[in-house]
């Protein structure tokens, strides 16, 4: 089902949803565009891709897993442990296809036969994604090289495509179809064709895709070639921006926090580019240099994960790590270099 909505009505639609549910949407803030909880009076900013991905919707940067009520020793009472499972629904409006697809990388890890992460699963199942197709890819975009494209619907409930005067909204799921029943949506008519043409032209603008097909194998072959990894990581300052901006990075830390007689167990985004990520109790560190850590980040996304999960690359090609890296490390170039490196040296 395809419908049309004017720019103003989309803003109204979003504001209406925000009265009933949590809505996460890109808004202009301090010279950039960033996802915020949509509050009355906030304007959607669809002019460019948000700096940080909408990952918070399904995997917040920090969340409480458990709370513990402690009692003073003289009370004789035992501490009480309580699960802290997330409740409520969330609608993400205006994320790009790559950001929406981030969660697809989480799925086979956070929900397996044996282990189910109830925090992630509840958030994901309670989330609705209204994605905006990209009309003009940026130079850092490479979604088309990782099995996707600027109008990819996978993972979305509704796909919006900008057309003259507003957006064509295509329902991808039943959840999306229900939302399109709102009276703010009109008959799409000839606008549907305009949307299709725009999506086709965006795909063309992206040009030729990188061929990452030998990355899984070549990255393993390069594993012990530390000269290569040193050269590639030379510029890196281990800041972790690449991992924090990334919609597909799913590693986390678990820590406790206490205040008075209540303590909380927290989960926070973690960063594999940091020295402490793998530092062991004995002082030994299997990834002691940034070269080791970049190697693992590349290996995980382009080799280990695809090996374990049917060939799917654990990167959605959003280019955030490239844009935000203060040192100019380009993940595409690292993978291409690993693939191109001569076999016999």
């Amino acid at each position, binding site marked *: 089902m395809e419908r049309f909505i004017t720019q103003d009505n989309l803003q109204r639609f979003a504001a209406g949803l925000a009265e009933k549910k949590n809505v996460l949407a890109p808004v202009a803030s301090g010279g950039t565009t960033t996802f915020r909880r949509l509050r009355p009076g906030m304007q959607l900013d669809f002019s460019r891709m948000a700096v940080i991905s909408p990952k918070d919707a399904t995997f917040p940067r920090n969340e409480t897993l458990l709370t513990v009520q402690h009692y003073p020793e003289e009370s004789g009472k035992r501490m009480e442990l309580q699960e802290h499972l997330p409740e409520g629904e969330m609608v993400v409006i205006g994320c790009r296809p790559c950001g929406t697809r981030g969660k697809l990388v989480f799925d086979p890890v956070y929900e397996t036969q044996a282990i189910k992460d109830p925090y992630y699963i509840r958030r994901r199942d309670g989330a609705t994604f209204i994605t905006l197709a990209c009309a003009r890819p940026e130079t850092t975009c490479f979604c088309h090289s990782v099995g996707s494209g600027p109008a990819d619907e996978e993972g979305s409930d509704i796909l919006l495509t900008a057309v003259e005067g507003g957006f064509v909204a295509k329902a991808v799921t039943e959840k999306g179809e229900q939302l399109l029943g709102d009276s703010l949506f009109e008959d799409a008519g000839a606008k549907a064709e305009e949307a299709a043409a725009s999506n086709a032209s965006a795909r063309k603008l992206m040009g030729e895709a990188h061929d990452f097909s030998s990355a899984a194998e070549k990255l393993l072959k390069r594993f012990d070639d530390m000269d290569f990894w040193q050269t590639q990581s030379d510029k890196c300052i281990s800041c972790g921006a690449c991992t924090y901006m990334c919609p597909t990075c*799913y590693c986390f830390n678990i820590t406790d*926090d206490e205040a008075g007689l209540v303590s909380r*167990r927290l989960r926070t985004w973690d960063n594999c580019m940091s020295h402490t990520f793998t530092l062991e109790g004995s002082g030994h560190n299997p990834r002691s240099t940034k070269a080791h850590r970049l190697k693992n980040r590349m290996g995980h996304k382009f080799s280990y994960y695809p090996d374990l999960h049917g060939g799917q690359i654990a990167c959605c090609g959003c280019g955030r790590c490239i844009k935000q890296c203060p040192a100019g490390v380009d993940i595409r170039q690292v993978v291409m270099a690993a693939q191109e490196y001569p076999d016999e040296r």
Partner: protein
Amino acid sequence: MNANPYLPDMATVVEVIEETPNIKSFRLVLNDEEKMRSFSFKPGQVGQLSVFGAGESTFVINSSPTRMEYLQFSVMRVGEVTTRLHQLKAGDQVGVRAPLGKPFPVEDMQGKNILFIGGGIGMAPLRTLFTYMLDTRDDYQDITLLYGARSPVDLTYQAELPDWLAREDVKTVLCVDNEYPGWEHKVGLIPNILLEMNPSPEKTVAITCGPPIMIKFTLQALKKLNFADEQIITTLEKRMKCGVGICGRCNIGTQYVCLDGPVFTYAQLKELPSEL
């Protein structure tokens, strides 16, 4: 394990044993009697212990499944959580998530000679299997234990050592790095004592755990003694958090120490990217 894999079970500390100046053993009983009765694990599996307010850390369950009055964990004090664990006394509450990880391949070891080589806190994972084998002694041929620490006070399980030394159905060799007054056992580094003992690889499985540097030289010694890679088993101490294959912290290539380990044969480790 609970449906929520992050939700620990509450347990009570029933006994604390001061093993060495920086290692204590904790004996725990789950508060839920039914869960304690039905708790089952295999030697080599680990658990996550929580001191609420401080955090959670990984330790091997070093009691034997043949002795289920309590679950024992030995903890070396190295940082925040372990320091808070060391402050616990009998009656205190902790959280336990266990069992996690894969155990030692006990069935494959039956009918074989068993050689244990433990260094320092690395004796903890060996203790569970060693005690288990003492309780199922007939299933194995010769059992030898080489256990070393920096100095005599650094040897854990002091209360059990006299029994282990006295038993005729196992051979126990203790060593420390340097001479100490009153020390009657071997003096020297574990790999050197091992070469001196010159065990035959014939129908033997070697199980080793200890600090990375000890493991490195022990492996070299075992190779010198003609042990094949498949005959050497170790258990890794990669940093872990979730313990259930999600948090992404413990991988070596495609393998996750918390799910696929922590027990590996040397042959398996050689197949993995070299990132120990």
